[in-house]
Each structure stands twice: as C-alpha cells, then as structure tokens.
C-alpha cells in the first residue's frame, strides 16, 4: 500500500481501523520525502527522529487501548515562518538561519494536541514576501507538475509538499494571496480563513493586519477537518475573534441549490490570461448547473487594491522586521560598534525583496509622506471593505480566478518585481477586507493546474467550503498527484 498517497481523512481512518500503524505512516512520509524532495526542495528542515519516536509512542498507546487524540499519527508540514519549540524557524532568511524558538505557535500546539506529527518545516519566500518561493535565502522550491516552473509563493514549500504527496496536510500563511496563489499553481486546495479566525500567535509577522494562517490539502474535506483543529479564539492574540468555530465539515454536502453567487467582472480583466478565463468560466458554469443563481457583478475599487496593499503591507513589514537587529537572537554580522552591528546584520542578513519592502514601508510612513501614502492606502482599504460588505448583502459567495496566469518559469519574473506583484492581483483584495477565500483546482492547461477562488463573508467559511466541495464533486478532477495517474 502506498501510504503517502492517502489524504488526511483516509490516513485518519486507516489509523483508527488499525490498517497500518502510525510508525508505518510516518515512515512512508519520510521515504516519500527522501524520494522526491531532492528534486522539489519543499522542505527547509525535517525532524525524522522526533517524528518516528512520536509515532512509536502513539502506537504503544493505541496498543494499550488508551484514548488517543483524533488525528494521532497523521503527518503535517509547517511553513517555516511559524514558531516550533526547539526546532529551527528560519523564515527562509539568513538573518534567522539558526533561530530556535522557545515556544510553539498556537496553531502548532493545536495540531500537536490533536495528535498530528510535525515532520518538517517548508520553504517560503523570505519572510513570506514573494509569489514564487525564489526569494528564499536557501533554495527555490520547484513546481511538482513541472520542475522548471515556480510553485508560487510565498507558501510554495507547503503547496509543493502537499501536491507531491509528501504530506497530506501543510500549513501556510496568506498575507496577499500566499496560500491561494501557490495552491492554484500546484493544483491543491488552499484556504485563507477570515482574519481573526485562526490565531496568529507564533507566526512571524510580515504584515500584521493581513497575515492569516491556513491549510493546504488535496481535497476540500481535509481542509474543513483541519480548519476544525486550528480555528478558535486565542487569548494570546488580541486580534483573534472571540467567535465559536462551527464544525466546518457539516456544510460540505449541502450543495449550492438556491445560493446566490456573484462573479466580479473586474477579476476577469486585470490582465487575466484567456486560457485561465476559459477554465474558470467553465467551472462557474458547472456550479450554475447545480442550481445556484450566478450573476455578473462589479467591484470597481478592485483596480486600487494592489496599490493600497503595497503601501500598507510594507509599512507594517518595515516595523515588524525592525526587531531583527542582531542584538538578541539570529545572525549578528558585526559587533564593532552599535551602528555597524545594525548595518551589517541587516544589510547582509536580509535579501533583496525584503529590503525593498522595508524601504518602501519606511518611506510610506515617514513624516511628510504619511498622509499621501500610508493614510491614503488605509482609506482605499476602507472603501474596498465597504464595497465587499455591500455586495455580500446580496450574494452568498463570489467566484473568480485565483491567479491571472499559469505557473511561470523559474527566473522569469525574479528581476521584475512590479510584474511579480501582479501575480497577487486577484487575491489581494480579500486580504485587504479580511475575508475568507479558498482556491480549488478547476482544470489544467497544457499540464499546468488552474485554480478558482471562492470568496465568502467574514466568518462564513462554512459556505465557502460548501461551494468548494460542490465544485470539487461536479468537476471530478480527482486528487491528482504529479507523475502518477
């Protein structure tokens, strides 16, 4: 039996029914990683020894008949910008190359408490800044469908690890599309919950008012199950919502009959390639056929979203990343005097893209420019939020492409940051408004996966998952793994 191919719920069922042991499952994960990761480079670090011994412990306890947590023995990978107690958390940056946090992120703790076994930390664009994972200070992750192409970013490692069946579940973080865009490029399901639904405690901040943790899996049900684990109020995070999380699997089989679905026309302009449009429109038609009321709508502020995002998020980033100064932890590249300690550490420790955004952010916040840049960005953000509120007074969900293009070649856009930023054009508005949105595979163009995005009202994740599940069923693409049919 090829255990690595199992989805999250299949793995859980198999363990519950004792069809295989946790050790067998985890061992299969590492043999899969050993087999394919040399080519894909999804992982920055793996923790085989701890994982195997955890699995053995679970098997022992199962044999003794002890009550086990629900997912005892299921492997999971974590984007390397979430803190893991005693395990390196690098953010794919030289500045944190050897940083070992003394605590677990809340989501990591929740996964451990429900029995998941953390097998490793996945690659990303440095500090989650980028759309291709080429900004990792260590290496570029490859798209499992075509090793010449990027997996998307910034959670490219997590997306690729799930797509290539190294793990059934991986966590990523989404600031401007960093879960949905790589999910689309890698042909997996990626979900960004409502801002505040999942605790950010322990997620190394990029832009605090946008960042949100979410899951990657090979099907919608796995995403819903993992959302049940990681959702909920956290006292350690003042921005986490004090709202009870429902059972997200409850809505999965309800269908879309009678649902009102809006299709924002702007998301099909914005330089979206025609082959993407065709595949996405086709997916929308199948949903239409299932009894939903699908209507074209307009969100005119969409064209300002990217500008607003690129004023506010670097501003927050410039401040969030100021703590990496070489004084207390991480890399210190000179200690001749205080100035050189700061200068050398930060100019050599950060990569180009990170430095670019720090500069942008400092500029937008500096006195004399604040009103014209940062403040104006905030005002646009408010307009965008209101526009969504209005639309959601009339529609249950919105559907749109996840990305404007197919996965591009490694190196193709790296020297052109402005073009690179355009990759997030369809995903960024959602982060500005703090909405939940999922990317689901909806077809292939010349062997490249295409994703469709379903956007919901705040804290209405259940409905987003409901539509995603229906789409998955009707499109019936199967849980494809590259290289295997």
């Amino acid at each position, binding site marked *: 039996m090829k255990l690595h191919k199992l989805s999250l719920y299949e793995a859980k069922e198999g363990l519950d029914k004792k069809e295989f042991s946790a050790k067998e499952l985890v061992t299969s994960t590492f043999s899969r990683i050993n087999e394919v990761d040399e080519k894909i480079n999804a992982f920055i670090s793996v923790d085989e020894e701890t994982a195997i011994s955890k699995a053995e412990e679970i098997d022992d306890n199962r044999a003794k008949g002890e009550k086990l947590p629900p997912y005892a023995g299921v492997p999971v990978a974590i984007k390397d910008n*979430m*803190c893991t107690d005693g395990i390196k*958390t690098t*953010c794919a940056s030289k500045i*944190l190359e050897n*940083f070992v*946090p*003394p*605590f677990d*992120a809340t989501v990591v703790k929740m996964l451990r408490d429900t029995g998941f076994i953390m097998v490793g930390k996945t690659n990303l664009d440095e500090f989650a800044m980028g759309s291709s994972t080429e900004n990792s200070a260590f290496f570029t992750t490859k798209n499992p469908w075509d090793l010449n192409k990027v997996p998307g970013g910034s959670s490219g490692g997590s997306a690729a690890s799930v797509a290539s069946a190294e793990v059934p579940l991986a966590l990523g973080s989404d600031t401007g599309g960093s879960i949905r865009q790589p999910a689309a490029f890698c042909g997996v399901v990626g979900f960004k919950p409502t801002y505040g639904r999942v605790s*950010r*405690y*322990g*997620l*190394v*901040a990029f*832009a*605090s*008012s946008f960042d949100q943790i979410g899951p990657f899996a090979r099907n919608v049900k796995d995403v819903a199950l993992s959302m049940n684990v990681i959702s909920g109020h956290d*006292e*350690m*995070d*003042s*921005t986490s919502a004090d709202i009870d999380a429902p059972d997200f699997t409850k809505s999965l089989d309800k269908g879309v009959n009678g649902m009102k679905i809006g299709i924002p026309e702007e998301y099909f302009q914005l330089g979206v390639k025609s082959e993407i449009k065709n595949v996405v429109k086709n997916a929308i038609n199948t949903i239409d056929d299932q009894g939903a009321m699908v209507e074209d709508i307009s969100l005119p502020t969409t064209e300002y979203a990217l500008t607003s995002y690129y004023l506010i998020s670097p*501003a*927050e980033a*410039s*401040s969030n990343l*100021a*703590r*990496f*100064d070489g*004084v*207390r*932890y991480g890399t210190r590249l000179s200690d001749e005097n*205080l100035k050189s300690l*700061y200068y050398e550490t930060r100019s050599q420790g950060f990569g180009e893209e990170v430095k670019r955004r720090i500069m942008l952010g*400092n500029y937008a*916040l*500096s*006195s004399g420019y*604040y009103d014209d840049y*940062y403040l104006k960005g905030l005002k646009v953000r408010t307009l965008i939020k209101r526009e969504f509120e209005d639309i959601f007074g009339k529609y249950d969900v919105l559907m749109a492409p996840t990305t404007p293009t197919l996965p591009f070649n490694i190196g193709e856009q790296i020297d052109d940051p402005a073009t690179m930023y355009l990759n997030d054009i369809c995903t960024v508005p959602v982060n500005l408004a703090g909405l939940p949105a999922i990317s689901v595979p909806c077809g292939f163009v010349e062997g490249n996966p295409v994703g469709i995005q379903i956007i919901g009202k705040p804290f209405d994740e259940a409905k987003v998952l409901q539509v995603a599940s229906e789409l998955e069923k009707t499109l019936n693409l199967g849980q494809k793994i590259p290289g295997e049919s």
Partner: protein
Amino acid sequence: MQSYETVIGLEVHAELLTDTKIFCGCSTEFGKKPNENVCPICLGMPGTLPVLNKNVLDLAVTAGLALNCEIAEFSKFDRKNYFYPDLPKAYQISQFDLPIARNGYIEVEVEGEKKKVRINRIHMEEDAGKLVHAAGGDSMVDFNRTGVALIEIVTEPDIRSPKEAKAYLEALKNILQYTEVSDCKMEEGSLRCDANVSIMPKGSDEFGTKTEVKNMNSFKAVEKALEYEVERQMEALEYGEEIVQETRRWDESKQVTISMRSKEEAHDYRYFPEPDLPPIVMKESELERIRANIPELPKEKKERFVSEYNLSDYDAGVLTSDKKIADYFDECAKKSENPKKPANWIMGDLLRVLNEENREIDEIKITSDMLVELCKLEEDGTISSKIAKEVFEEMYKNGDKPEEVVEKKGLKQISDQGEIEQFVEEVIEENPETIEDIRNGKDKAMGFLVGQVMKKSKGKANPQMVNDLLKEKI
C-alpha cells in the same frame, strides 16, 4: 538686563502599580537579577504578540479622572519606531494621536498662591530596558523593565518658575500615590521627569525657543536643573546668542545642563496604528466602575482634616502631603479625643526621624494605637512632655508599647506631695545663696532650683507641683 518670563512644560513618566507587565504576564518586581523578569513576548521574539493588561487601562483611566481629564471613548495604540538595543521590537507600543485622557489640570500652591497647571494629555505605553555598560567597554542589556506599564503625563506650557515646577511635581506625585496609580519612587525610576524650557521678554506672548532637559533624578534636581537652564538661556540672550532647539542632559555632579543632541538629529518615529492590538472602546459603565473606586484625593482629605479634626490649614497641608502619613494620622485621629496631639507628634518627632533615616511611615514599629496611647499618658499627667520624648525614642527603637516603657524604666511622673516636698527641702538647704538671690528679686534663679529638683527626681517630678512648692517654701 531685560526681564524675562520663564515658560516650562513638563513630561512625566509614571510607572503603573501593576503586578505584571503591560503586554505579558511577567512580574514587575523591582530589584531582580538582570533578565529574570522576561518572556518571549516582552523580549519581542519573532511571532509573539502583545495582549493588553486590563489593569493598566484601569490605572490610566484612574489617573485621568483624578487629574480632571476627559477620558477618550475611543483610543488606540500606535507604534513608535526607532532602533536602540534596549528596545527589543525596535518599536515602542505607545499612544500617538488618540491618547486615553486629555484636557485636565492640577491645582498647585506656591508661596500661598494657588494656580492651575493644565494637563494636555495622558497616554499609556511600555517601558524600554536598561543598558549596562561594563568596565571593559562592553555593553549589556537588562530587559527586566521592558514592557513595564507607564503613563506619560504632559502639561501645557503653564509653569512659570522652577519652584512652580517642583510644586506641580509634588502635587502630581501626591495624587498618583493617593490613587495607587504609581508608587512614584524617583530613585527606582518609577517617576521620571523631562522638561521643556524657554524664556521670553516679560509681557511677550510669543514663546522663545525651547530646550528639552532630561535626566533629573529627584525633585530637587528638577528645581536645580531648571534654575540652571533658565539662567543659561538668559545669559545667552544677553550676550546676543541664539537659543538652539536641542535636548540637554542634567549633570548632577557638575550641576549643569549639557547638550545631548540637536533638532537636526531628531528622530522620525514613523508612528502608525499598532495592528496587533484592537482599539480601546471605553464603555460608560466601565468608566463609572473606575470612578467609583477612586479614593479620597489630597485636596478633599485636607479639607476634611480641617473641618473634622479642627486642624489649621497649614497642619492639614503637611499631614496630607504624603498619603501614608495622612492615612496614619487619620487612624490616630479617629482613636484620639484630641487629634491635635497626634498631629503634633507626627509633624514633629515622627517626621524628623523618618527624614533622618530616610524611612517610610509604614516601615516603623510605632502603630497608631501606640502613638495615641503616648498622647494619653502625656495628657493625663502620667508622664511629663520631656519624659514623653524619651518614651517615644524607646517606642521607635524597640517597638515597645508606651505603658511598657514607662513601667519598665520607672518613668511615671511623681505627683506625691510628700515625696516632692522632700526634694524641695533638700534643694533649699543645699543652695542658700540662690535663695538669697531670689529674695532679692532675681527671678531667673528660680529656674535653676526647679532644675535641681527635677534632677533629684530623675525628671519624674510633676513640674507644676515643684514650682508651687518652691514658691511656698521660699
């Protein structure tokens, strides 16, 4: 020389009396080993987030109400960005444009004149750590203070002299202590003061260029530093020099202010709203709860002491200038038939020994019960006022009750006619020349004889009876 008017504005940082820090659960206890009171949150480790300590908000609002401020219905935290090794996140979480309290005032009294010093704003913020410079040139950081809760209280430029500045600080300290917002220990850094100073020609309505004076570690230092700075600015103007806008440091050992940095080097703090903390929305019911818990303030207490205990305005002022002393006196007064007596003891001997030994009233062994008892013994003639002082010293040193001291040392006043008569006769016999002097009208000699009798009685004879008997016999 032209005459100038001084303009001073003060910025006071007060450490709030909370058990834990503003955004984490670490202890705020003073005097711990370096980096003992720290956790990933207050060290600003990657991934950590701040959570506001509810008590901080309560205390800041309490301060606002006690200082006659308007409390903001809506306020928020902002980030103040700058690099320094004692600032772990490289930003300080503070309040910028929407502070928790605004538009208040304190009434101060300087040389009998009352005036209002307006308060522009009060905001909450976190403290930074402390750099420790070792002998070899290495610098180390102690983060124990990092994240300790502060309020900053900023006045309008209403203060017109260094004396007024000191009076304002004393009044402010008193209110913060009364409300238990801060212990205001300047020597432990829980009260810190910066001053903006400028001068302008008398009668002018245009302020001169101001300098900011920092690093003043006592009320006396504030007064001295301001006196120096005002003097310096006047001299500069007289010599035709320009005052430059700059930050100056008070050098305690040299008693001068020294330039630290000029305006050109001023920071651009790049303030922006703290995205990790939701805005603060103050509910009316919360405000009422806090208002209801504000104790009697110094001004009210002073008025009550005058009306309830019949004290003079001055005495009531002295007794309410420190909350602990006021509370101590209040206890004594409630137990005493004549509150004036314990008031005199406190203002006299008690405050003297406290000052001499630099101690607080709650650190000494004399309880209010003991002091009231001492007053009683003195009033009913059990002991003389001179002996009372002796008893007081014993009480202070050993914590013995006054009756015990009197008993143990046999200090009871002698009021037995026969016993005193015996001493008197002896003294008359031994001093015939003095007796002669008195008969010749030298009244002063009488005092000598009284002294002799007291000496024989070891100070215990009732002085009135001694006087009467001497007069009778001579």
